């Protein structure tokens, strides 16, 4: 597609819809060259020496914009960052030159064990200093600005002395990193912790948002019978999240938006349709607020 090719020459992701790239869809995407804003991959899945993953990613990347999204750097870790992992990441980014790199405000490794989940961080001065040092270390090593993703969480900590939004605001201010605003995570965390999602989003440094994530969640209940939403990435984007996304775009203007799906992966056209749905909402925002977008 000419539009994708043109968009890819510009720095950064285009303000369009994108989809997570899954091995199930490699061949179809390579043959069909779908009209899509960008693809996103999990960095760790491509930290292998050779074979089909690199074969397909190399060819698909030549046709499309790319976001590389890390899930294993453990930026919220109590221990120093894994230098070996950082080197692998630098090598991968060097190879594919993605338009965007992002990671999570979370931890996953401790004591040499990788727990394969995005675990929550308490918000206080000590963790703030540590997260900032880690984000700066990543940006220095990778020689680029990273986007930090707000987490979906199920518990809070007695040790926290700051709100999550204040914590993120301070990380962005001190490190100059950007923000990956996961609107599904906002919805999940705000339901789980009884907060107002729009107030949360409004209190973030929205100038720093470089990308949005949308995904599906699962429903559960806590010990008191109150709703407990789980960030499962296993279903279509929920209406409540689409609504929150539209309100978010009213504040942000058109923003690169990824449809995340990691479980129960449907046929590619189903995901593409969700990406196009995001683009339709972006287009509506554009018409509604021409001055703000131009500014």
């Amino acid at each position, binding site marked *: 597609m000419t539009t994708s090719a043109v968009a890819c020459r510009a720095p950064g992701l285009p303000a369009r819809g994108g989809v997570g790239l899954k091995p199930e869809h490699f061949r179809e995407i390579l043959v069909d060259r779908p009209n899509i804003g960008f693809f996103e991959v999990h960095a*760790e*899945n491509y*930290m*292998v*020496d*050779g*074979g*089909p*993953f*690199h*074969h397909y990613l190399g060819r698909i990347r030549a046709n499309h914009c790319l976001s590389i999204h890390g*899930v*294993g*750097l*453990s930026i919220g*870790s*109590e*221990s120093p960052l*894994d230098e070996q*992992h950082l080197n*692998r990441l630098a090598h991968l980014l060097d190879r594919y030159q993605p338009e965007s790199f992002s990671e999570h405000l979370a*931890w*996953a*490794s*401790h*004591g*040499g*064990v*990788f*727990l*394969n*989940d995005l*675990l929550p961080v*308490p918000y206080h001065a000590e963790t703030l200093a540590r997260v900032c040092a880690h984000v700066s270390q990543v940006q220095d090593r990778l020689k680029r600005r990273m986007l930090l993703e707000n987490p979906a969480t*199920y*518990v*809070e*900590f*007695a*040790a926290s002395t700051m709100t999550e939004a204040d914590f993120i605001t301070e990380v962005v201010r001190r490190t100059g990193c950007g923000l990956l605003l996961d609107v599904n995570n906002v919805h999940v965390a705000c339901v*789980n*912790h*009884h907060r107002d999602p729009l107030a949360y989003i409004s209190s973030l440094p929205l100038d720093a948002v470089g990308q949005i994530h949308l995904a599906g969640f699962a429903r*559960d209940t*806590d*010990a*008191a019978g*109150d709703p*407990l939403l*789980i960030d499962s990435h296993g279903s279509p984007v929920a209406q409540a999240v689409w609504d929150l996304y539209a309100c978010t775009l009213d504040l942000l203007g058109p923003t690169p938006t990824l449809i995340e799906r990691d479980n129960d992966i449907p046929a590619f056209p189903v995901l593409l349709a969700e990406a196009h749905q995001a683009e339709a909402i972006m287009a509506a925002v554009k018409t509604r607020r021409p001055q703000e977008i131009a500014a």
Partner: protein
Amino acid sequence: MSHHQAFADSLLAMPPACPPGLTVWNRSDPARRFAVYRNNVMVSLIDALADTFPVTQALVGEEFFRGMAGVFARAHPPRSPVMAHYGDGFPGFIEDFQPAASLPYLAGVARIEMLRVQACHASDADPIPPERFARLLSDPARLPTVRFMLHPSLRILISTHAVVSLWAAHQEDDIGSALAAVDAAQPESALVLRAGLEVETYLVKAGTAAFVQRLQAARSLGDAAEQALAADPSFELSDALGLLLRCGAITGLVP
């Protein structure tokens, strides 16, 4: 104890535990919410093993497999964020896993599956150009001393059970009939290799397996053939070389 140590320990603990210092807006029991993290960790690790070992799972059934994988995951959680190779210790674990002792071939089938994943992600390399190999064959005096460069994905497995046939039966449409035809007590050897993008699994004779293992240890063609013949009097060098060439296992000659 550090905050993360308590949290990490509670994630994997049996019976279920909950770390101190968690709060919930409605003052409900945080253990119920912490269980989401416990579940995420265990399900993701067990799912990763199920992805790598589908035939192993088919042989024991999903419920048994997930139970066995859970015991493994608690005892041997990943040490690296690169999950592609998680489970390389699983076949060895299965070998000593008492509840699976009635299936003595299970660990061998799991080994084939792990080798296939390793082969899938191994470095790329092109097969030796046919004319280069033809030149080598035209110089019989040099042949015994030649040493081959082999494809990085090449793996050999020697088993006391019919693990290749058991694995192959699960690739058939009618798995039941295919399995019924397998004598699990027969020793078998496998050659696993990624040719292009596809991982192939070949049933090979004991001599061929010994031959390739010798070549992998950087021994000369003559030495490897001698060892292969000692291991298996029916070993035919031309057959073994023919297979290696056909499947793209030879990528060059060591200068």
